[in-house]
């Protein structure tokens, strides 16, 4: 299919020029423009230092308020109680919908916690 081209008519699989479709496609190169935009510049972000161990630490379980994400995190909380009882887990819901940043909650976690687990949706 020669989209956007209206030069000449087709006669028995060939145009009036006498060239076949494959000859035209293979022989004549054209230049077209790239439709893609410009990506953002990426600034590498540092990771927080990891904990040496979870023993005696406080972990916040952050519920982003997807449907049933809270129920899921309660199971994570139960897992820690069953397998790592020295870890204190605190369940916290985000203040608003998951699409919004929540600096107050993050500040609270920073002040009172050693680590965080966030999840999960869908």
């Amino acid at each position, binding site marked *: 299919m020669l989209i956007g081209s209206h030069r000449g008519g087709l006669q028995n699989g060939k145009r009036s020029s006498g060239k076949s479709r494959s000859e035209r496609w293979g022989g004549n*190169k054209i230049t077209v423009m790239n*439709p893609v935009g410009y990506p953002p510049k*990426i*600034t590498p972000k540092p990771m*927080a230092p990891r904990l040496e*161990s*979870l023993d005696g630490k406080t972990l916040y379980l952050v519920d982003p308020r997807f449907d049933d994400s809270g129920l899921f995190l309660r199971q994570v909380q139960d897992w820690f109680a069953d397998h790592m009882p020295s870890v204190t887990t605190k369940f916290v819901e985000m203040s608003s919908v998951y699409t919004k940043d929540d600096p107050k909650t993050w500040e609270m*976690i920073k002040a009172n916690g050693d680590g965080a*687990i966030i999840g999960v949706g869908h």
Partner: protein
Amino acid sequence: MHAITIDSKYGVPTVAIHTNAFEKAVQSVTQMHGMPQARYTFVPQPVMGKTAEQLRAYVDGKSPISGRPVMQEVIEGLTRPAEGDRVKETKFERSTPRLVEAGAEENLHRLFLDNNWTDKLPIILPTEKKVAEMLAHTSRKPDEVAGHLRSNQFRQHWEFTVEKVAVNAVMAGARPEYFPVILALAASGVSARGSTTSSMAAMVVVNGPIRHEIGMNAGTGAMAPYNHANATIGRAYGLLSQNLQGGSLPGDSYMGSQGNGYAYSSVTFAENEERSPWTPFHVQHGFKPDR
């Protein structure tokens, strides 16, 4: 995204737990936000609607992506040092070329299709001549920044010029006289290829004298495929959205559960200002009825 914020900005080691359908999306978002080494694990999808017992089985089970125990990955994510861990190079420079390497028409059509630059329907190849014809219908300079788009709040904006918008307008089959409307849509900052599991599509209602000047339909069949301006302006909006925001790829940058057929045309039509029972859009925004 929130895990990256808590971890990098607030200095609290954080692990995110996602469902496996988001594997590519998570990799893409962490890369674009400069933290490809972010710690995460996966459980099966869905979480929604499962019982507590079923969800506990997820927690006790293995990641469907890595095959390793979910909680082992959580604990390691909080305790294993970051150095040398999954760090990938990140791009800092604008690298999108202005032109595609010259080729035969058939090959170029295949290239555009394979690169996911189309809506999988045939396109008009954007030659420099056709793009120039499109640009002749705006007073804006080709290299002027026309706007920024992204598919959702968790991704960073991509930037584009007036010329880039014209390229996509040509691909959609739009006539040059439609370009002011298409450029306005691009500059709105609202993507017609938004990514949300709810599978939304955009809708375009065009107000003002240009409706008549370019022959848009505001009457019978306005939302249906019977008007060239309506159809190609809406298609151009979709194409420019996906290409100028850095893509719209299912499982990566598009997560609509079922998708939406309205996205082919963005339900584009003209406001029937003359017969509408409502106040015309421009009047609602402070313009005089006769402008």
